[in-house]
């Protein structure tokens, strides 16, 4: 990440060695800060699982199991060790890829290793679609501020952004799978556990992306409106530059940091929503693992999923930091 920052600095002839070190240092500071935040989250997750009543041995106990059996399982799962020792194991195990042990005694990392890439594919495609659709809709609406199109786009965006993903999914399944039979309602998988064809991905990606498109369209539209008030835009308009050129060369670059921040916020919503959408379409991601965890009240599994998701979101936020640094650096 320091590398990309230095390349930007090289574009400017005035940039000296001092500036390069400064950029590298501030980039390192951002990385350290993001990693610290992630560590705090992991500590909070451990504390939540620990402090709330009920533990993994209790959750999977069969009816009529004796207290001795329960103590035996607690011992097997290592739950009888001191809290601080277990906390240390949890925090130090994570960087090495050890996510702990599920209530059934399986390694959480093994449980997630096959489905998690499928969830990332689903979330990544949904994020891409959200980016393209919301920028296009936002620009389209901003072309004639206050016009009927602008009002229609803004009102529909506000309407759909609050819809739970499963409601959108039900509507999509009814229309595109059951009534018109254009797309499959259920995801079939290959032998290696990934979706069998691209058609299987269309409806899940749409169900995930539609509420986020609503949210981000509003952000793009508002960021463009803020940017249009800037004096250099007014000058560009008075100079008679073509509208399209003003949009791509002046408005969008200025609005970029806000748009990126909005998309970064959506990453969490998309990964959370994926759990729900995967359940509906029987998609082979972490949603199916979590459905099992819900039935077993298996808290170590959800803690592991939260840890991995936290890492992914931290990565996306770092990318957003980078884009912001690049955008503001280009302007300075």
């Amino acid at each position, binding site marked *: 990440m320091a590398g990309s920052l230095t390349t930007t600095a090289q574009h400017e002839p005035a940039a000296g060695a001092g500036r390069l070190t400064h950029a590298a240092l501030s980039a390192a500071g951002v990385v350290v800060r993001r990693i610290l*935040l*992630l560590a705090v*989250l992991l500590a909070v*997750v451990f504390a*939540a*699982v620990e402090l*709330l*009543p*009920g533990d993994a041995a*209790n*959750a999977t106990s069969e009816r009529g199991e004796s207290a001795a059996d329960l103590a035996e399982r607690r011992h097997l799962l290592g739950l009888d060790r001191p809290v601080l020792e277990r906390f240390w194991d949890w925090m130090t195990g994570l960087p090495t890829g050890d996510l702990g042990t599920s209530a059934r005694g399986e390694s959480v990392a093994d449980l997630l290793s096959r489905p998690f890439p499928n969830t990332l594919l689903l979330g990544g495609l949904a994020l891409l679609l959200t980016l393209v659709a919301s920028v296009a809709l936002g620009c389209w609406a901003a072309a004639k501020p206050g016009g009927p199109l602008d009002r229609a786009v803004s*009102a529909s965006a*506000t*309407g*759909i*952004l*609050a*819809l*739970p*993903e*499963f*409601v959108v999914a*039900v*509507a999509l*399944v*009814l229309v595109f799978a*059951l009534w018109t039979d254009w797309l499959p309602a259920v995801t079939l998988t290959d032998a290696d556990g990934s979706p069998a064809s691209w058609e299987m991905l269309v409806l899940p990606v749409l169900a995930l992306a539609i509420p986020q498109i609503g*949210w981000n369209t509003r*952000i793009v539209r*508002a*960021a463009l*409106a*803020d940017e249009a008030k800037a004096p250099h835009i007014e000058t560009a308009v008075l100079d008679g530059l073509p509208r399209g050129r003003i949009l791509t060369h002046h408005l969008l670059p200025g609005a970029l940091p*806000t748009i990126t*921040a*909005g998309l970064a916020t959506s990453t*969490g*919503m998309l*990964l*959370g*929503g994926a*759990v*729900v959408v995967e*359940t*509906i379409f029987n998609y082979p991601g972490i949603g199916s693992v*979590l459905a099992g*965890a*819900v039935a077993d*009240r*298996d*808290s170590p599994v*959800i*803690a592991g*999923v*939260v840890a991995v*998701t*936290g890492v992914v*979101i*931290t990565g996306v*936020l770092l990318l957003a930091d980078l884009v912001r640094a690049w955008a503001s650096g280009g302007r300075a």
Partner: protein
Amino acid sequence: MTDTTVTVAAPARHRLALRVLPALLLTALALAGPWLAPHAIDAPVTAPYAEPGGEAPFGGDQLGRDVLSRVLAGGRELVVTSLLVAVLVTAAAAVLGAVSALRPAVGRIVERAADVLMLLPAVLGILLITLSWPDGGRLAVVTASFFLGVPYAVRLVAGAAAPVAASGYVEAAAIGGERLWYLVVREVLPNLRATLLALFGLRFVAAVYLVATAGFLQVGPQPPAADWALMIRENSGGILLNPWAVLAPSIAIGLLAMSVNLAAAALVPMTGRKAVPAL
């Protein structure tokens, strides 16, 4: 101070009422629904997944229970839980936000808490808490929604309270030796009524999303309770036989979420409309 936001011209107020009315009507209908249900919600009236007609205008569900009655009865818990979460979050955020604006050290802690929470998707957060607390029931859902919502809400209130906290009369009161709680309750919060009302609306929307999703993931209300989200999950297997068993509760949740969000967006004070809408 508040006059500019409270006194709205008559046509604008009329428009505002029109935008808020659908949300109020739907909420009232969901609350009164259980009394309007024509049949018992837990006894079969038709064959499983019977098509609409006769006794049951929306047909039957997977056990042959009347879909219309269950839809009428299935919104109250969602709405009550969401309203409770929205009230708690708004009240906590009002106090903490005003304190953050007056005491920057508290504000920084809240900022960091919100930064950490960004790494935890709300859906996973609610699963984490409800699975770690198996006997928590509705209290676990409320607790999870509360803690997942407060940091963002505090950030919003602190932003709106900052100019008020910096105004002359608050500074004068602070120098005059007034206590912190007096400044918060008597000087800052009364000037944030419009912001707090909008915040309440937005938190209600967020709570409906989270509570409904928890219901769908089967960590909220348990069968045989009538609950919109749970109905969608339970009846999805028979979607071809009687689509209404899934469609009716979906429409109910969709309309509730959309109308409340449009109402909340209309309530956001004009001066507070930032580039990034706060939810």
